[in-house]
């Protein structure tokens, strides 16, 4: 089991406080959801943990290793992977090349567990894109790009995957497919932590939820309890009709 320990993480941009001291523990055995209004710091949290930003203060420990302030590529190599809010890919390359690069730069997991992709085709098959292996990424419809993003993140054989709004822009059917995909990845041994706004999707997928508001964590616990927490309802979910 892999653990991500975030303690008192603070990130400011000039005068703006994006993260005001967040404590969060992420275990790879569970599926954790992070929700909150826009601007509450969710993406900044992922970016700071994954090395896109340097933390202003606080600590981040990944499997006991202090990764705060490490460059993004070093963190990626340690088995902590992430996807982005915009659907990211290597646009002019084929899908096969996209995942091939990810596989070639992946981490070597010490525990030998988790997905071991023996070929790019195997990974594409896992996400259901094997038919498009020779297609250029920027010709793909949006739903496929989202799945490609997950595939690229999985290519590095991560122990933990942080997904930033992976369902944004997907329709009902595509969202359901994504849930299935993430569950299957979890079963393979990859921890899943997901930011999203689809409360229904989160409720179905996640056993535990954390809620951010103005850079503070205001709730953290089993999904049912959090969704019924009056503070959370006031700040994010709205009153019941």
């Amino acid at each position, binding site marked *: 089991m892999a653990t991500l320990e975030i303690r008192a993480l603070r990130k400011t941009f000039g005068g703006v406080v994006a993260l005001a001291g967040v404590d969060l523990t992420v275990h790879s055995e569970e599926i954790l959801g992070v929700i909150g209004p826009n601007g509450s710091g969710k993406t900044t949290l992922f970016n700071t943990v994954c090395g896109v930003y340097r933390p202003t203060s606080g600590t981040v420990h990944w499997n006991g290793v202090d990764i705060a302030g490490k460059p*993004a590529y070093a963190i990626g190599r340690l088995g902590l992977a992430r996807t982005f809010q915009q659907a990211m890919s290597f646009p002019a390359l084929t899908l096969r090349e996209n995942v091939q690069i990810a596989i070639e730069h992946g981490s070597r997991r010490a525990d030998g567990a988790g997905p071991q992709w023996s070929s790019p085709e195997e990974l594409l098959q896992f996400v259901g894109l094997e038919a498009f292996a020779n297609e250029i990424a920027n010709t793909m419809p949006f739903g496929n790009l989202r799945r490609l993003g997950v595939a690229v993140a999985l290519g590095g054989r991560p122990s933990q995957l942080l997904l930033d709004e992976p369902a944004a822009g997907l329709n009902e059917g595509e969202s359901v497919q994504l849930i299935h995909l993430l569950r299957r990845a979890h079963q393979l041994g990859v921890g899943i932590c997901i930011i999203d706004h689809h409360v229904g999707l989160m409720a179905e997928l996640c056993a535990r939820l954390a809620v951010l508001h103005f850079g503070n964590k205001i709730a953290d616990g089993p999904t049912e309890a959090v969704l019924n927490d009056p503070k959370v309802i006031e700040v994010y979910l709205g009153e019941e009709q």
Partner: protein
Amino acid sequence: MAQMAAIAEARPPASRQRKNRALPSSAALIATAILVVGVFAFPWFNPGYRALSFAVTTGVTAIVLYGMAIPFGQAGIMSLGYAGLMGFGAYTAAILSRDFGMNMWVAMPFSVLVAVLCAGLFGLPSLRISGHHFAITTYVMCELLRIALINGGKFTGAATGLDLPPMGMLLGVKLDKLGNAYELVAAFMFLSMLTAYCVANSRYGRTLRSIRENEQLARAIGVNANLHKVGAFMLSGLFAGVGGDLQAYNFRHISPDLYGGATSLYFALMVMLGGPRTIFGPLAGAIIVTFLPEVMRIDPVDSRIAYGLALIAVVMLLPGGVIAAAGRAYRWAARALHGAPANSGSADAGASLT
């Protein structure tokens, strides 16, 4: 956002299907074989001293251009400093010959070393500055080198430059004979072409392309982008050093004006015109700009107007360069003739490095 803009720049239009091109098709191999034979057999067609001499220049230039294809074609970073790197190689060779009596072969590793280190140095700013700003910086660095060479007094021969001794013999072959010198340069040129091809089709080439395509994503999946960018430049310095060494010994005289920003501009023009991501692109660019106008006795002023216009046309209308456009035209013609999607693998494999 800027990233998307950077991704969109100068990218060859994507064909819908591309076969996995680990190995080129037979058609491509035959074309390459014909080219190799043709190039090596050139002196036997009695082209004359002038044409042969320009052919040597073209070959030396092509070597540098293949080096450029790595950071520019693969990693997507343009540098206008290549004439300077070539100059480092050439001047190192000249100075070592004058002060230590080294010949071309002994001097070559030193030329390469100096060029590689300087290429790394020239490449460092790319980690802080993007795109065109970096290009301007490299242009300026190149000009600084030229100014330093002009003011280098006795050491660099100042504005007059330096002379070099003849190339001597190699395995019993007199290299001073122009025909033999040409063959040597041609050999190095094909070696450069092959190296560039191998780099492009390797894991390293894929890594560089990932940086070009989406640097943020590349970093997220574990690519040390900074290291690879500088590394790509250093690798291109290798080619520039070899080219500089060969140029110095072939023409027996070098001077600072050969290695200024303007020359770098012409290098960039050639590589963009031919196409930095196709296997024959850099060679084509060198031939079109350096060899053809001279051999066809086109007025140099007219020819420069022509390829300035050609560059504009290529940049605006034919991304990927002339060779890539020719490849697309070939595939289009093949489809039109056969009435069905052509075996797109064959045309691609020979034409493209990626």
